[in-house]
């Protein structure tokens, strides 16, 4: 397993948390499951609406780009500005959205490069 994978996962979670704090989401559950070559991150946000998370979902859902990932992943978590979401998208394969009665659940899937 490439040595950098642990740091990448730490940065991905940090960027997600940073983004949520900036949007005044102060209560959420984040669960990470790491397997041999893939990882899932499950984010549950109570009292949230899909519309308010649309920007995040759209940007993170952009196509994964492993060449650009290797070039710039270190920048994730450095600024907290919105361009971080595009960076995040380069490391994430896909995002699934589940709308529950009292919360929104986002599941991020990542396969190791």
């Amino acid at each position: 397993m490439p040595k950098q994978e642990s740091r990448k996962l730490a940065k991905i979670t940090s960027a997600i948390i940073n983004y949520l704090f900036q949007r005044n989401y102060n209560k959420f559950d984040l669960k990470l499951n790491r397997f041999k070559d893939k990882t899932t991150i499950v984010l549950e946000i109570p009292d949230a609406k899909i519309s308010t998370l649309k920007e995040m979902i759209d940007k993170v859902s952009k196509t994964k780009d492993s060449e650009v990932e290797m070039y710039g992943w270190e920048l994730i978590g450095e600024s907290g500005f919105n361009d971080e979401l595009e960076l995040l998208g380069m490391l994430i394969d896909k995002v699934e959205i589940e709308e529950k009665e009292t919360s929104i659940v986002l599941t991020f899937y990542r396969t190791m490069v």
Partner: protein
Amino acid sequence: MALSYKKFLSNYLVFFIVIPLVLLAFILSRVNEILVGLKDIYLCSGLLITDFIAVGGIGATLINVTLIIIFNYVLIKCLKISFNGAIFAGVFTMVGFAFFGKTLINTIPLFLGVYLYSLYSKVEFKNYIIVALFSTGIGPLISFIMFGVGLELYFSIPLGIFVGIVVGFFIQVLSLNALRLHRGYNLYNIGFTLGIIAMIFTAIFRVLNISLNANILINNSYHWHLFSMFLIVSIFLIVSAFILDKAVIKKYPKLLKRTGRLVTDFVKETSLSVAILNMGLMGIFALSLTLILQININGAIVAGIMTMLGFASFGKHLYNTLFVILGAILASFIFNTLPKDNITVAIGIFFVSALAPITGQYGIIAGIIAGFMHMLVLPMAMDFQGGFDLFNNGFAAGFVASIVVPIFENFSLKGEQNAKAGV
């Protein structure tokens, strides 16, 4: 129609560039002049500022450019890499610097080094292609060891190859670390990394009393040939954008809203047509600068314009670039070092655009300040790195961004507002 033209662009565009280049080379120079010129280019150290047109003539320089294009095209095709913003930036930069320091001899060892690192890290080489493309900016170090130190060739050539491989091996790790210093606000991140490596080698050579023979070799005789070439390329890109998407102009403002901070891939975040339109417009903008500031186009300026074109798919656009360039022009007028009289300043006017994301994130005044500071740091950067790093402006821009970004971040409201507004 759009799809087939897109396929044409990605598969055959290179031939429409290479064939005219080869023809032009043989129109402007005789065969024996090209061969002798190529030998001179390959055997020179290429330390900054060495315009290959001055070393080997226009014909040999164009053939060197052609060889670099073919090498990169074959590599990218073999690795099955699709053209995204970063690849455009890397290839255009390589082609630009083939006028001004890069040869196959001094680039291949660096590629080998990056390849060995990919084996070591158990990651496919194609994932390091961006680093590999930009790593070639330190090509003159390899050429200098091979042909400039004064050692016997049977020793100096293997030594040069070895140093190239070692440097290439470590660039990925060092470049990631460099990103943290300027936080993605210097688009020439690898130029910054290479400058630090070059600084170490400069120190070693100076301790060993090896003269670096830094000089300025430029040839301005082909200004209008090169101007015409860029004008055709820029118009071709703009027309291509409209062929791909007739409504491209309506989508262009979306690109202008991007900060351009690394890693911003305009091809992915907008579309190929919008990115190509931006490249064409940036080409026209760069040519306008040469006219307004009376800058002669030589090999070094070609590199500057090509890099502006390439990075127009990877962070630069008319808005974020304009104000850092204005800052640089302001500095040159205040200190009375006009671009038309000073090649280092003229080069700086184009390459200062590395700091474009500062305007994008923190606004016009921040961009002007960054551009101004860049021109102050630039001469010192050259002295530090001895001319081995072709991306000297990337080296200087790295320092400027490292200093101004934390200050703007703490004392400017613009960044915070942007974050909240979703910019």
